[in-house]
């Protein structure tokens, strides 16, 4: 038995520090209040402390750390987006991911797998070619590959997809990766906590006070806090919090569901996405197949999951991988996705002075956790939008200047 473990077992007082300290009371005032202890809120707290020396910060969470979409997502990380703004932003995130396990001294199980977006139609081939060219132009490793290369890389796949949707080729993105989602929230949370930020769980924000000069305070289920800066990082609850400051946004909420199989021997190395079959799948380090489909078809503020979803997804999985017919599904769940009209996030300053938005993360925000934390910390610290998020500001809609990512984000998260 390792000495560390033995020492732990024999001790009455636990010699290892807990992952987080639990601050007993809320202070009457903070320099910055962050709403939401998902990956994004915690990453912002971490970079505010590490890069900007701002540590008089409270992260308020109505439930528990990482209990929102951070702990419900299928963890696909990639940067093969469609717009110049999107590719530059997500590529910076992929770079930040590389060092995180070392930085946190916590294994995030970051695993580079390669990512195939299958094309089953000529028009899908055209979109893949377009994405590959934009990516290459911006120095991102993407290429269009033919059906033979797909068959060689994924020998277990029925290339005709049960005759419904023969695979014509794919967009291949070598840096595509997966990671352990909970550990990402814990790593950022512990790092922020060690640097002096306070994380208050079971603390719901119920109102935000503003006057002519902007934000002045926040009301919570545990009392009032004075603050001039609020960062809203609440994903599926964004419309509710935006309403507290009277802000209109294009964000609408639909559930996104996912499920996992029982663990099986490793057979699937890359991440596979099929837009036509509404399937994406990867195999986790534990051997489970992690699977998802497209959004639920109508608005709902709930995390219920449905049999329709499990049946539909299983049917399409069997089109691609008929040998899985005996493998059991062991869990399914849902998260509330904060969708935007152009499938790009909404980040940065807002018309309400001191109210910053980190939202519109829909079905694609896990991969952005490091870069959004970093750019939002900069934005809050300097009260000026970071250059990388200029294309994502709320004001773009008023100018009819969208950042159209639908072709790269609508099924392949």
């Amino acid at each position: 038995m390792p000495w560390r473990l033995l020492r732990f077992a024999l001790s009455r007082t636990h010699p290892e520090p807990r992952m987080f300290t639990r601050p007993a009371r809320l202070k009457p005032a903070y320099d910055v209040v962050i709403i939401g202890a998902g990956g994004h809120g915690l990453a912002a707290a971490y970079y505010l402390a590490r890069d900007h020396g701002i540590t008089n910060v409270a992260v308020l969470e109505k439930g528990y750390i990482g209990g929102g979409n951070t702990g419900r997502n299928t963890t696909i990380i990639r940067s093969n987006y469609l717009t110049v703004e999107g590719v530059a932003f997500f590529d910076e995130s992929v770079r930040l991911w590389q060092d995180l396990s070392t930085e946190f001294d916590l294994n995030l199980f970051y695993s580079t797998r390669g990512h195939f977006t299958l094309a089953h139609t000529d028009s899908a081939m055209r979109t893949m070619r377009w994405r590959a060219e934009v990516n290459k132009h911006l120095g991102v490793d993407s290429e269009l590959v033919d059906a033979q290369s797909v068959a060689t890389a994924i020998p277990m796949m029925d290339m005709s997809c049960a005759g419904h949707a023969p695979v014509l080729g794919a967009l291949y993105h070598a840096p595509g990766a997966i990671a352990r989602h909970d550990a990402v929230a814990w790593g950022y949370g512990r790092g922020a906590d060690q640097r002096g930020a306070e994380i208050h769980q079971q603390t719901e924000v119920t109102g935000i006070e503003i006057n002519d000069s902007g934000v002045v305070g926040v009301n919570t289920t545990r009392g009032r806090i004075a603050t001039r800066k609020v960062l809203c990082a609440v994903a599926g609850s964004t419309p509710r919090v935006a309403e507290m400051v009277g802000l209109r946004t294009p964000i609408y909420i639909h559930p996104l569901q996912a499920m996992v199989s029982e663990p099986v021997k490793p057979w699937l190395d890359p991440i596979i996405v099929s837009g036509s079959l509404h399937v994406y799948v990867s195999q986790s380090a534990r051997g489970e197949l992690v699977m998802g489909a497209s959004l639920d078809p109508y608005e709902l503020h709930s995390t219920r999951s449905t049999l329709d979803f499990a049946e539909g997804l299983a049917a399409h999985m069997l089109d691609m991988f008929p040998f899985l017919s005996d493998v059991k599904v062991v869990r399914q769940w849902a998260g509330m996705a904060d969708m935007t009209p152009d499938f790009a996030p909404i980040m940065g300053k807002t018309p309400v002075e001191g109210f910053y938005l980190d939202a519109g993360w829909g079905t694609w925000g896990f991969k952005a956790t490091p870069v959004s934390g970093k750019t939002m910390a900069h934005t809050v610290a300097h009260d000026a939008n970071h250059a990388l998020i200029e294309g994502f500001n709320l004001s773009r809609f008023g100018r009819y200047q969208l950042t159209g990512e639908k072709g790269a984000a609508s099924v392949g998260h």
Partner: protein
Amino acid sequence: MKLMPCPVNGLRPVSEFFYWGEVRPMPDPDRCDDAAWADYVFNRNGAPGIKKEWWYHTPSGTWFIAERDTIRDEVLRTWLHASPEAEQQ
């Protein structure tokens, strides 16, 4: 399988229907300014509540309105619309 009451065909599986968003008044495009038009085109009432929504029963080609609780996913009532204008009053 979730069921939706169609005003013409009665209870049918929700997979037969198509959701078309909340019933919203459209400003007069000839008279409103760019900001009001952008607000209409992009912004939504994204917070939960009891909402009036457009739904379409695909097999029978029926457009109708449903009043639905968007937290509990409970359809309270459905009816055929008289005209889009009348609905917005």
